[in-house]
């Protein structure tokens, strides 16, 4: 087993493997999106208090969760790359970052659109909202640092350190923001705490899985381009079919 892991942590073997996996993940992601949207919009009933507006939840919550999850995954890969000096892990980290940032953006966007009918404002300075915004900044910092360094190895290592420092800070930021908000104004915002309808739950989990698979597909495709770019002087790249044709 251990040998297998090392085998697939080499770009040489990972590149074709990823190429084979991508179509499967892509197709299942598309199917799950279709199912999720069907359940969410056709099967699930309208919410008692929020009417039809609550249906934003099926995209909002998955993208929020995935944006946070991806940060941890990214930091994990970055740490692996920094500690064990495995090239592939660092490439994965830089492949994940843009997707994570986009999910954070979608979360902010859909949240804002939900806020308008629910709270009457596009944005309030609530703890959750603020910490999601800061998470977006952390992603953007990682991406910008990586892009500013020309030497790929230094770029990987520097941005890995940043990702790790960031992930240590995420809880601190979260609690500080939470505390900050509840200090002056009593909790003006409460999510509808009613127990969820089964169909709603099903829709949400399907969408979550679909988004997760989508993220994997994109990250794998991107990492394949990164491998091609970084290893373009090696022999095995120049012998690939898609390069020779």
């Amino acid at each position, binding site marked *: 087993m251990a040998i297998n892991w090392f085998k697939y942590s080499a770009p040489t073997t990972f590149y074709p493997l990823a190429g084979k996996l991508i179509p499967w993940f892509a197709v299942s992601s598309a199917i799950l999106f279709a199912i999720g949207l069907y359940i969410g919009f056709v099967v699930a009933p309208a919410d008692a208090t929020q009417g039809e507006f609550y249906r934003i939840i099926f995209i909002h919550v998955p993208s929020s969760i995935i944006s946070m999850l991806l940060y941890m995954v990214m930091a994990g890969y970055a740490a692996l790359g920094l500690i064990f*000096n495995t090239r592939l892990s660092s490439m994965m980290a830089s492949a994940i970052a843009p997707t994570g940032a986009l999910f954070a953006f979608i979360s902010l966007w859909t949240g804002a659109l939900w806020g308008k009918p629910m709270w009457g404002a596009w944005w309030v300075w609530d703890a959750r909202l603020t910490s999601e915004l800061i998470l977006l900044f952390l992603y953007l910092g990682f991406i910008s640092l990586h892009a500013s360094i020309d*030497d790929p190895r230094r770029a990987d290592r520097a941005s890995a350190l940043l990702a790790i420092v960031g992930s240590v800070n995420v809880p601190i930021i979260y609690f500080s923001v939470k505390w900050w908000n509840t200090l002056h104004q009593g909790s003006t915002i409460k999510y509808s705490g009613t127990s969820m309808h089964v169909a709603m739950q099903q829709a949400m989990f399907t969408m979550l899985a679909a988004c997760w698979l989508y993220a994997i597909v994109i990250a794998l495709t991107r990492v394949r381009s990164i491998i091609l770019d970084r290893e*373009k*002087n090696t022999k095995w790249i120049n012998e690939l079919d898609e390069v020779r044709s």
Partner: protein
Amino acid sequence: MLEVSNLACSRGDHRLFSGLSFALYPGQIMQIQGANGSGKTSLLRTLCGFITPDEGKISWCGADVCDLDEDYFAQMMYLGHLNAIKDELSALENLRISAGLSGIELSEKDAVAALRRMGLKGRERLPTKVLSQGQRRRVALARLLVNDAPLWILDEPLAALDVGAVALIGELIAEHLARQGMVIFTTHQPLIVAGMEMRSLSLS
């Protein structure tokens, strides 16, 4: 004793050298040769541990330098392209502080003596900003006199120096070798070290 085995190093996409092996024993001196951009500086910086080699191992007295870390640094001194002196400080302050950074408390008297030996008499207390290029290099080289590390790694120590100073550096190196020191250096000028066989390593 410094041992290098099967070292390979690349910058950017470019492989500079590979399969490089040599050993340097106490009392030995080695010159690295090669055209501009052939990787001399990169090799010296790899030996200092700034650059992680792609392959191969560097060991000091049998132990890998990556593991030794600060113990290795205590045994070594590096003098690079840059002088590592501050324009705003005087030669004296510069020398005492850089000795302090390498863990040695240097008295003012010793520092002045070292600077005089380097031909900076009467200029010890001027800010280095007003010194000429060659004099600034001498301030940097004065560190050789106040340091007891056995391994010297010198990148173009003769740059910007005049004939007298070049001879002085030759003397210093000869003394160091006589004390069972080791020297590894690069230069584009000839350097004569009295009574020592000079090994040389070519990078192509």
